[in-house]
């Protein structure tokens, strides 16, 4: 009997440890990323580091302004086309397509989500970049190429989360709306979508987070010039590319500046995620 109790206690402790592991992991990650990045940010000055457009790390000029704007530009351009397309597909799958067809589409989306980012980057480099160079002009390696590849990559996130949000809306809403003489589309646009809006916004924000954090695919197709892009066809460097691009040869302050770039990225993503989970919590408390 006593032995039984002892092993029960032991099991609980073991489970508690495994639950604690992820908390510990995030603490260590935070500590190490900050420890490596903060000193340089402090040295350069946060304003200068974030907004200075001059990145000449070998000459002591550490400003990631161009990269911050670059990340935002590529991300924004990718959202511009993938959000409408993704939400429309989600609506189609949840409301319009016959269930069997919706299942097939869901498989496609799943597959799209499963393709590794290097494969997307490779495809972008071999197909999209030359296409842009030959048909639209410029070098090909550009904001546009990045936006196309990133948009494809975040489609699954947007579609899946929006679809779940739409499916979670009580079907009574639709029944009631139809019973009032609304058409199917009127029901979708005036009742279902407004009711699912917080879930759809979550989908967009998570897609945005994924786009900002994506590295390899972007690195391969954007040309990585550390200047403000002046057109869709101009090359651009994102924060993530900056890290992989220069990690190999960086030393001293230069390396620290790359870690500092990672720190900025980390803080940005954490804030984005906290905002989502807090607003979702507020959403569930406000709702029925």
């Amino acid at each position, binding site marked *: 009997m006593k032995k039984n109790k002892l092993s029960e206690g032991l099991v609980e402790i073991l489970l508690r440890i495994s639950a604690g592991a992820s908390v510990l992991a995030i603490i260590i990650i935070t500590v190490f990323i900050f420890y490596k990045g903060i000193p340089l940010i402090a040295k350069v000055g946060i304003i200068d580091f974030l907004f200075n457009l001059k990145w000449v790390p070998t000459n002591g000029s550490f400003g990631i302004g161009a990269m911050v704007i670059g990340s935002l530009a590529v991300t924004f351009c990718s959202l511009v086309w993938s959000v409408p397309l993704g939400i429309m597909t989600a609506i189609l799958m949840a409301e319009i397509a*016959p*269930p069997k067809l919706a299942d097939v589409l869901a498989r496609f989306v799943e597959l799209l989500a499963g393709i590794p980012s290097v494969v997307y980057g490779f495809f972008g480099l071999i197909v999209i970049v030359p296409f842009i160079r030959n048909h639209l002009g410029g070098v090909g390696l550009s904001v546009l190429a990045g936006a196309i590849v990133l948009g494809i990559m975040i489609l699954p996130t947007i579609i899946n989360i929006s679809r779940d949000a739409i499916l979670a809306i*009580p079907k*009574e*809403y*639709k*029944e*009631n*709306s*139809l*019973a*009032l*003489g*609304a*058409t199917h589309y*009127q029901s979708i646009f*005036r*009742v279902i979508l*407004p*009711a699912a809006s917080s879930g759809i916004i979550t989908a967009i924000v998570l897609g945005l987070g994924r786009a900002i954090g994506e590295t390899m695919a972007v690195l391969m197709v954007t040309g990585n010039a550390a200047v403000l892009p002046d057109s869709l066809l101009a090359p651009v460097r994102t924060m993530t590319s900056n890290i992989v691009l220069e990690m190999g040869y960086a030393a001293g302050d230069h390396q620290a500046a790359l870690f500092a770039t990672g720190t900025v990225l980390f803080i940005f993503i954490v804030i984005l995620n906290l905002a989502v989970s807090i607003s979702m919590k507020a959403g569930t408390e406000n*709702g*029925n």
Partner: protein
Amino acid sequence: MKTKLECKEVKVFYKDFQALHGIDMDIFENRVTALIGPSGCGKSTFLRTINRLNELIEGTRTEGEIYLDEKNIYSNEIDVVALRKKVGMVFQKPSVFPMSIYENIAYGPKIHGIKNKGKLDSIVEKSLVAANLWQEVKDRIHKPAAGLSGGQQQRLVIARVLAVEPEVILMDEPASALDPISTSKLEELIGELKKQYTIVIVTHNMQQAARVSDFTGFFLNGFLIEYSKTNDLFVNPHDKKTEDYITGRFG
């Protein structure tokens, strides 16, 4: 007494299962008709054939004819949307849309093309008054409707139906989720509404059927067993099965 709805040989199939076996039933204008019977007897299915809401369920097939004012609602020329505007429906669980009280009521009229603010205001007020809800909510009609109590929500849903100016109102166990006080308010409201509307109500509660309805139909296993004036059916049932049911021998 005018016949509002004339149902002939209505059959409904869900895939292989036959849910209704040829229902013939006349429903009269400005009267309350109650449909009673044990769970799964087909009464709700029948109700939903009247505004063709069954069609939303995959694999459903309906046969037979239903005439609304002598027009077959299952004929090809019928516009389902226009039909549903004429035949409103109140569901078991009050389902208010996640918007303000005002927007809930204005939803239907807006969909049907009314944009004038003044006109909408008056429709909202009129509907809420008719649903006996105006006094309780007039100070907060721009607040979220989700904040209302269950009974208020159900009356809000009725007001929302009234706002589209239907001729027939279908009610599918509208009181089953309500407390006794809300229920009696609802029954009172039904009594007032029948002056203007034709009402068909599905209920589990035989006392309720007896209190509110003029006619009652008893359903069992997809058949309409007996249909007559409410008083006759409860006091003097013709069929053994009806008698067994209303005396509580099964169900």
